[in-house]
């Protein structure tokens, strides 16, 4: 990955993040019903968007890896899965922090929360598999299989969880559309925050991807050297 592009994205992240912080805490008005707590939403939503997009990238890379067999796709898949996991964790944490004062509970089995949690569990399994297998082509195939199955499962998860929540007696009455952004300044703050988090995500993904690429190349180089020695007849 080109170092210059990474520097540019890092700079963009820095600027956008400063702008987002200003807009979230100063520019956007305090929401009437929820008060100051509502501002966490400007972090929560971008994290969710980035996490879902990342898992999507992971699944697509998995398909490309199985199809083309080039390790570059495996590196991208692993990087996207890991980075997605970071943001998915942030979604759950920020969601809980927001839910406690607003809904009166840390956690509720709301359909979106549940879907996010299930995705988090799936990729938790993915990480555990990666951690307990050697860095081989076989492990790369395993990762691709899990990422693809997880992504294919998401529509069924959403369908089942929605049905479950509408039929199950609601423990907590949620205010549907509680995120209503009546003020245009709120919309602006959200958009800037979305851009900032997307840039942050892009930067982190590139860093991790470059690192994994380097590892893969290093492995290939070590093999080449060992092969050259082997051909020369030395041990």
């Amino acid at each position: 990955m080109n170092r210059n592009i990474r520097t540019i994205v890092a700079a963009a992240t820095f600027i956008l993040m400063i702008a987002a912080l200003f807009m979230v805490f100063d520019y956007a008005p305090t929401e009437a019903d929820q008060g100051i707590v509502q501002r966490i939403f400007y972090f929560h939503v971008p994290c969710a968007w980035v996490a879902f997009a990342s898992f999507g990238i992971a699944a697509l890379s998995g398909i490309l890896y199985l199809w083309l067999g080039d390790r570059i796709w495996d590196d991208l898949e692993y990087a996207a899965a890991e980075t997605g996991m970071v943001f998915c964790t942030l979604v759950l944490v920020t969601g809980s922090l927001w839910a406690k004062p607003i809904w009166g509970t840390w956690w509720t089995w709301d359909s979106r929360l549940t879907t996010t949690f299930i995705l988090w569990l799936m990729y938790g399994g993915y990480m555990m598999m990666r951690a307990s297998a050697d860095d081989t082509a076989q492990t790369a195939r395993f990762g691709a299989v899990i990422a693809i199955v997880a992504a294919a499962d998401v529509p069924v998860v959403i369908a089942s969880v929605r049905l479950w929540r509408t039929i199950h007696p609601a423990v907590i009455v949620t205010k549907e559309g509680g995120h209503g952004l009546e003020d245009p300044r709120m919309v602006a703050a959200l958009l800037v925050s979305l851009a900032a988090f997307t840039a942050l995500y892009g930067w982190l993904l590139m860093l991790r991807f470059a690192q994994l690429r380097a590892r893969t190349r290093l492995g290939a180089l070590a093999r080449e050297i060992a092969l050259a020695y082997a051909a020369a007849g030395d041990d």
Partner: protein
Amino acid sequence: MSPFAAVLRKDLRLELRGGNSTLSLVALSLMVMAVMVFTQAEAKSHDAESAAAAIWIAMVFSGVIGATRVLTAERENGCIRGLLLCPIDPAGLYAAKLCAAFIFMAIAEAAAMLMMVLFFNLDFGVPLLRTAPILMLGALGFAAAATLLAAISSRTRAGDMILPILAVPIYVPALIAGVRATAAALGGAPMGAIAQWLKIMVAFDILLVTAGCLLFEYAARED
């Protein structure tokens, strides 16, 4: 005889000849149901909801063991390598393994249904009959997911420990749908009322069986 039939016949024959997978699954189901009864408050232990919860927890546990057993049978003497050397479609191999796991699970589920009636003081009758297709759909889905993922987990250092961690989150939609449908059916709801749950289960089963057939090759290959 097709490779599918040959592999399935071989697995069933091995099972009858002291593989004891089914027996372990039945015993495990019994334990899970008993634990469920002991951990429930007295007042709650005789209703459809608890019974449905118990039988589905038993399903998940027995499914993990069932899929693991079906693949460990191939590990002795490196038989899985011998199978992969054969000129057969990996999808056929997957389908046969899936069927074997499903049959073991289905028998365990049938036994678990009997235990459920006894432990949770239910009646034999139409409501119970209605749960049978629900449980079979659930067993098929779990077998489909677990057979594919067991091919992965058995090759990691964590070994079979990792199978439930991989399989259960994937299985959540069928689990949610299955428990709700079972509870509704036991509570006397007609088939029409649980149709939407069944749709989700059928969709899950089709999805996972398809994914397994397409991806098993990549999970099982050795190089």
